[in-house]
């Protein structure tokens, strides 16, 4: 038999197997559902940001309008910051249900604001969302195991094994074409829905190609594993059990164990400690001499040394200075925490090589900018934006500028793509 003949025989054989067809239909259906679920979630996030932007601008304008000094305007005006979902994020919703992707901040001490989280429903976040990344990393291996584990064993049971091998020319050829037919049909079934979703949300061709590579690698790995296992001289169920045990250990146990190891290996300062320390510092300022606030402030901001004299019991510049000093007091702790989270993420990246599923999941959420790294980048942008706010207000406050509404025309605006190469 020629190679094409073998292929077409396999294709016809396959089409006569209701079980295998159903399996591929189910896989396609689940992939479609995962893509749909991702797309609606991203739509919801984008729509939320649109609504928030409008409400935020209106609220800020109204707040500023009521004020007659810059200090009051800074106190009452909030600024929306957000991390818009990337085009690809429908495929990997990632950590966005755990890490905040929107904050409304103002000129007060940032450490008191940045840990607020506008998180999703905790009990639903615990289950997680059904997205393409989950389907590919966790469920696809199961489909492959079911599809491939007993190719030889089942033919032996059906009594066709020797006949098939004899007519296919030489043995390897047959199993190869049979595997290629099954796996490529499954691959098409699960990749097509993704492709449609990606084209609908306008994902770059390059990114689509990268996702294709991830899908390809994941399928290839499990295919070879299944083939290797199914060539062992065991019964079909025994092979399936072995493969399943491997799946459980790499998908379930390894990642959770890595998480536990990473968390013990890299300690992070308790969030509660940061915020308690910050609050003490800010509150103490009211009882301290004004210089106790202004000296550490000027140490960081020497440009205001000449304007740092506080003469009245309450001055806005002193008020914002002690807010900043509160931030300064915990800057090291807060930085340690971020470094720790980032290092944990990095170490987890190494552990992911022990688990094909975790590696797939992480690769996709990395490509989609929905991983821990992206959450940290967003936090960094919020910090930068807060710093911009300070550099906008400080000259007005320290130079005792006369109040004029036009000054707000140059009020910094949050740019979600600030400092990014996207």
């Amino acid at each position, binding site marked *: 038999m020629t190679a094409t003949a073998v292929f077409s025989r396999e294709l016809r054989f396959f089409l006569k197997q209701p079980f295998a067809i159903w399996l591929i239909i189910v896989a396609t259906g689940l992939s479609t559902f995962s893509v749909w679920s991702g797309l609606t979630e991203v739509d919801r996030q984008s729509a939320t940001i649109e609504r928030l932007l409008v409400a935020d601008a209106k609220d800020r304008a109204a707040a500023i309008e009521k004020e007659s000094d810059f200090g009051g305007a800074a106190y009452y005006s909030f600024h*929306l910051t957000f991390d818009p979902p990337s085009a690809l994020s429908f495929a990997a919703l990632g950590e966005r249900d755990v890490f905040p992707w929107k904050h409304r901040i103002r000129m007060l001490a940032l450490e008191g604001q940045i840990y607020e989280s506008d998180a999703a429903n905790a009990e*639903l976040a*615990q*289950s997680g969302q059904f997205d393409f990344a989950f389907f590919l990393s966790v469920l696809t291996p199961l489909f492959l195991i079911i599809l491939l584990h007993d190719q030889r064993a089942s033919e032996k049971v059906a009594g066709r094994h020797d006949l098939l091998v004899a007519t296919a020319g030489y043995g390897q050829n047959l199993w190869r074409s049979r595997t290629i037919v099954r796996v490529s049909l499954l691959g098409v079934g699960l990749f097509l829905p993704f492709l449609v979703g990606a084209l609908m949300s306008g994902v770059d061709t390059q990114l689509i190609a990268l996702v294709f590579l991830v899908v390809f690698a994941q399928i290839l790995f499990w295919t070879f594993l299944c083939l290797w296992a199914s060539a062992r001289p065991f019964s079909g169920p025994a092979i399936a059990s072995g493969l399943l045990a491997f799946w459980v250990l790499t998908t379930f146990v390894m990642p959770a164990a890595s998480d*536990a190891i990473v968390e013990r290996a890299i300690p992070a300062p308790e*969030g509660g400690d940061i915020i308690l320390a910050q609050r003490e510092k800010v509150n103490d300022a009211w009882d301290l001499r004004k210089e106790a606030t202004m000296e550490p402030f000027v140490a960081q901001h020497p440009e205001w040394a000449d304007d740092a004299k506080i003469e009245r019991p309450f001055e806005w510049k002193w008020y914002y200075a002690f807010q900043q000093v509160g931030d300064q007091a915990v800057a090291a702790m807060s930085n340690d925490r971020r470094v720790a989270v980032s290092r944990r993420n990095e170490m987890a990246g190494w552990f992911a090589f022990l688990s094909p599923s975790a590696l797939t999941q992480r690769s996709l959420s990395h490509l989609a900018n929905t991983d821990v790294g992206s959450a940290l980048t967003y936090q960094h942008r919020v910090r930068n934006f807060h710093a911009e706010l300070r550099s906008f207000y400080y000259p007005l406050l320290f130079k005792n500028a006369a109040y004029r509404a036009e000054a707000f025309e140059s009020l910094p605006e949050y740019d979600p793509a600030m400092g990014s190469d996207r």
Partner: protein
Amino acid sequence: MSVIRNIAIDEWRYWRRSRIAISVLLTGLVLLVGSAFLTAIQMIDASHEREHLQTEAENAFLNQPERHPHRMVHYGHYAFRTPPPLSVIDPGIDAYTGNSIFLEGHRQNSAMFADRQASAGIAMFGALSPALLLQILAPLLLILMGYSAITREREARTLDQMIAQGVTSVQIMLGKGLALGGVTALLVLPLCIASVLAASEGEAVSLIAFFISGYALYLLTWCAAIVLSSTIMRTAGGSLGALLAVWVIVAMLMPRVSSTVATNIVDAPGKIETDFAVIEAVSKIGDGHNAGDPAFTALRANLLQQYNVDSVEELPINFRGVVAGAAEAELTDTLNQFAEERMRVESKQVRIARYFGWLSPVLSIREFSMKLAGVDLETHHRFLRETEKLRFDFVQSLNKAHAEKMTYLDDAGRSGDPEAEKRTRISTENWKVLEAFSFEPFPATDRVEASFNPLAKIMLWLIAILLLCRTIGRRAL
């Protein structure tokens, strides 16, 4: 009876000779014991840490120097959610919700510092708690051990022999079920040991017994399903395939599908978004810092009439403190309405997700477990409500001191007159209004009552499968 026992003993003997069965069982037990140990350490640590932080926060408040009471309203207080005793087995949503909350005047903050936000984020199913292992992995382990219980006898033609010897089909199924029941007992054993810890931390023993029975019932449901599958399927491969398909659907698929469906059916606007509506509603209430706000004209008139005086200066109490208290009460009323609405929406989402428990016993046992342990969404809501009460109580007590412990003239003139300012600083005795806070989950009877519903779903599954065994299973043998 002895026939059933012999069949079970035979099955155990088979497992002892099978390398696969032994390694599956050992791996499962090692994982369970290991996770019970690690989860216990972690939750007990968290519990001590949060208790410690709570005491520290209370001491910090009590040790504040003499000052104006309103400064203490803004100084605020912290509350921490200590995990309940059974969280050593099921930590539930502890890692997904903030476990501390800052309480201050005029605001309701959200809970901060969910542990997950500092985690490496690699675990796809959360931490490996004993609860998770028993809910998801234990059924798989039972499947791998039992899928061929009867098909094996059929393929080896020993089944016919047994029937020829007069063993009934019910006896065969019960015998195989008993063998799997023995495995279940082994799996539940680590749970019992961990429970001793929960009991020593003060959980009711009867509740713990109920908790463990629930898990046993859940695993027995799986045992029945496994016996059924291996009875009606002709081959071991078919039986394994069918059981795995069921497991993938109910344990892997359903939990995520349920949460996806719930988020799509009920839209829950985030806190930032509802805050706009809050700001709008609150702007109609007067500013409690400004006793001259026209919103308080009626209050002023009432007070003047009540004390029969002509001006606020003549009142025996400090009008500014009265205003602060009245504004806080009204504000809190509004804030609570919004908070209750948010909790209502969240509960609605969760309720929809829990309907899927009819389709998946995994979801039912999870609900049962979290409800009994006191680590579900409703318990977190209870935490939010209790901390809000704590917040309102200490703020209002401070506002009362503000009204009663100083004169209006001193209070109004304090920013210009250092002597008046000194008189508005009240003694630290007044900080004792802060109540000690220690979060407790719902009372045991309430938790047991709430867990009947998910338990009923599991029971229904068990009964349905047993009925199928009686009808289809008997015919198939």
